[in-house]
Structures are given as structure tokens and as C-alpha cells.
């Protein structure tokens, strides 16, 4: 995209990235922002890591743009000055975009090559010791559920963020296994203080809904500090759409060691699929990750997406 922008900005084309809900929570340990301010922190992080000159915008926290384009993670549209869609594709493709723009405003020769650019390469944020607390496996088929953080008057950030996922039975019928993971947000550069009380949670369920267990305490490692998620599995027997109240208590300390505070925060967990987030991708302590699509069978077949401009077919 950077090369296309460099070549076509002078021809009356403007370029924007639009930041959306995380497609795959936990990849590189990033967790979904809860507020617009936090989403803009993600934008700043994206600028840092990518070093692109393309202007960033961000979707609202109601994800209006994401919904309007069908919730695709990396789609691309070209609009004319009347807002009419003149090209579109499900997956961003700089080569195809260049062809679209060549048709619209004329080709740029020679085209700028990415090797001509000096894009900085920045890694993910480093955190304190990871790999200290064993991970809890996600239950089969688990996918993100709708959650609503309860922002208090104290305005203490959600240093640890809840990620709730449920097996298909949970988001289809309200019955099954619920994953509750409290993940430290790397953008706040904080860690768990293991010299004080460990992370604990409590669930209040509506009448007629059973939750087992209703509360829990995380492991208390020997290490004085770490940044591993604190994870729990809970069995729920209710109905689709039921809402659980989850409260968590923890101590958050910043990596610069300027504060260490007790935090109590609350969430509503809806037994409903959160369609704005796809499956999570677990990042291991060594930074490695692998894709495991919940419920997908193994096969050696493959297909590819296409793009659409003018009269082309789009897949």
C-alpha cells in the first residue's frame, strides 16, 4: 500500500487505513480495546509497528464501519468523489489496487518498489516474564462472546482485560463451557504482582442459570512478577442471551515500577456470539503462534479470494 500511495497521491488519490476490532485476539498478546481511547492507542501502536505514511482512521466502538462492510477483516474499497464504490475486494491487495488506479487515473511508471522504501520494522511490546503460568487450553470450538466492561467513576483503566469465549453450545443455547481469560493489556506495560493476593473472580448469574464454579482464584506462582494470562473454565447452564456479571480482583503494577495498585473491575458477559471478533490466536511465550480454526476439519484443498473492479467477478 505504501508504494501505491507514494505513486498515486499526486494523481488525486487519497489513502486511509481504518482500524477495526481485532480479528484474532491475543495474537502478539494484543487484547481488544474497551474504549475509543484504547482503540486510538492501538492506532498509535499500529503506526509504530508499521511506520506507514498512510493516514489512520478508526472505527467507532459500535463498529459501524466494520458492520457496513460485512465484517471482513481486511477489505478494501475505492470510492469516487461522490462516494460511489468503483472498486472493492475482500482482501487488500496492493498489486490489484495499483491496477484499479491505473485504470482510473492512469498508470505510474516506473512503479515504486517496496525495496525503495525504508520502512522501520518494530517488534511487539516486550513484557515481563511470560511462560511462568501454564496456559489453560481453549475448549473445542470456542469463539468470542459479547462482553461489556463496566467503566467505573474512578476511570482506572482495564489493565487486565477479560476475554470470554464459549463453546458452540454457549452461544447457540446458553449451555456449555465458558473460557474466562484475564489478559494484561501490553499497551499499558503492566504486570501481575505475585507477592500479593492472586487474581480472583466471582460470577453472579441470573435466576435459573447455573454456573460452576461461581468463583475462583488463579495460581500463585513463585516468580515475583509475570504477565501470563490468568484463565479459568466455567460450566454454564442457562439460555442464549443470558447475562452473567463477572467481577475480578487483581493487583496491577507498571513495568516502570511507579505504581502497584489493587483493582476491582466488573463485566457483563452475554451468552451471545461476538461477531466482530473472529477466533483468538494464542501466542506462546517464545512469540510463536499457530492458527487453529475452531471446528474446521483438516484438508489439503485450497482456494483463493478475488477482487472486483469495473466488471470483474469478486469471490
Amino acid at each position, binding site marked *: 500500500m505504501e508504494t501505491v500511495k507514494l505513486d498515486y497521491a499526486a494523481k488525486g488519490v487519497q489513502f486511509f487505513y481504518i482500524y477495526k476490532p481485532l480479528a484474532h485476539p491475543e495474537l502478539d498478546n494484543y487484547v481488544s480495546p474497551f474504549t475509543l481511547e484504547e482503540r486510538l492507542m492501538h492506532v498509535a501502536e499500529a503506526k509504530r509497528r508499521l511506520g506507514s505514511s498512510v493516514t489512520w*482512521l478508526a472505527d467507532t466502538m459500535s463498529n459501524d464501519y466494520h458492520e457496513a462492510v460485512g465484517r471482513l477483516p481486511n477489505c478494501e474499497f475505492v470510492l469516487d468523489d461522490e462516494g460511489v464504490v468503483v472498486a472493492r475486494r475482500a482482501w487488500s491487495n496492493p498489486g490489484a489496487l495499483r491496477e484499479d488506479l491505473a485504470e482510473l487515473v492512469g498508470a505510474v511508471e516506473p512503479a515504486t518498489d517496496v525495496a525503495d522504501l525504508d520502512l522501520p*520494522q518494530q517488534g511487539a511490546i516486550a513484557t515481563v516474564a511470560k511462560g511462568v503460568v501454564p496456559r489453560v487450553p481453549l475448549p473445542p470450538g470456542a469463539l468470542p462472546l459479547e462482553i461489556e466492561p463496566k467503566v467505573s467513576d474512578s476511570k482506572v483503566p482495564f489493565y487486565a482485560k477479560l476475554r470470554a469465549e464459549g463453546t458452540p453450545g454457549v452461544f447457540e443455547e446458553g449451555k456449555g463451557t465458558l473460557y474466562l481469560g484475564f489478559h494484561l493489556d501490553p499497551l499499558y506495560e503492566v504486570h501481575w504482582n505475585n507477592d500479593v493476593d492472586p487474581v480472583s473472580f466471582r460470577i453472579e448469574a441470573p435466576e435459573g442459570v447455573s454456573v460452576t464454579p461461581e468463583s475462583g482464584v488463579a495460581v500463585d506462582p513463585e516468580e515475583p512478577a509475570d504477565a501470563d494470562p490468568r484463565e479459568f473454565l466455567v460450566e454454564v447452564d442457562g439460555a442464549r442471551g443470558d447475562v452473567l456479571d463477572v467481577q475480578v480482583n487483581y493487583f496491577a503494577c507498571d513495568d516502570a515500577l511507579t505504581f502497584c495498585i489493587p483493582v476491582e473491575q466488573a463485566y457483563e458477559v452475554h451468552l451471545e456470539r461476538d461477531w466482530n471478533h473472529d477466533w483468538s490466536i494464542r501466542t506462546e511465550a517464545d512469540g510463536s503462534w499457530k492458527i487453529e480454526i475452531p471446528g474446521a476439519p483438516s*484438508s489439503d484443498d485450497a482456494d483463493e479470494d478475488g477482487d472486483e473492479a469495473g466488471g470483474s467477478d469478486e469471490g
Partner: protein
Amino acid sequence: MPAASRASYMSAIAMSYDRRMCLRRTALAALTFLGLALLGLTSAADAQPERKMPPGLEPPPMRFAKAPELGQVFPNVTVVDDQGQPVNIRSLAAEKPYTVLTLGCLT
């Protein structure tokens, strides 16, 4: 799409970001699409029998069917700039002959 075209598609995507990030996203995009393609729901030309979709997942073609189409005026959506100020997409598009909008995130 033939393997050669697929390879060039991957290469093109790989050029859009810094190399480490782009290779990760390229692999991620490819494997994501591969995973969903296994279900026989990503290509009208796929001759394999349709398989059951894992619950809670929407294949890209189903999602893209809901997106604005060629020739259609883009929805009247407002996003924000990096300072949190509202930006209306249609108003933004009116500022230049053409506007490219690419959706993305850190993961």
C-alpha cells in the same frame, strides 16, 4: 485461482507492510482463508460437496455479500481520526477524485 496467481497475490500482500508483519499477516490471511475454504464455501467453482460450517463462523463470501457493491454509494458511516474527531466517509470521499479505504488491525 491457479497456484502461480495465488503466489503472486501473496507476494503482493507481502509488499504492503514491513516484512515481518506482512509475512505474518500473509500467512495468517492465507491460512485463515484456507481453513474456511476447506468447508467448500469460498468458491462457486468448488466441485466438492458442501460441508457443514463450524458454528459461529461466517465464510468471507457470506460476509462480502453484505458489503457495498460496485456502483453503490458507500453507506453514510462516520469513523474517527487519530485524535478521536468524527470523520464522515462520504464527506471524506468528496475531498479528492478517489479515496482508498483499507480495513485492518494489529491482529
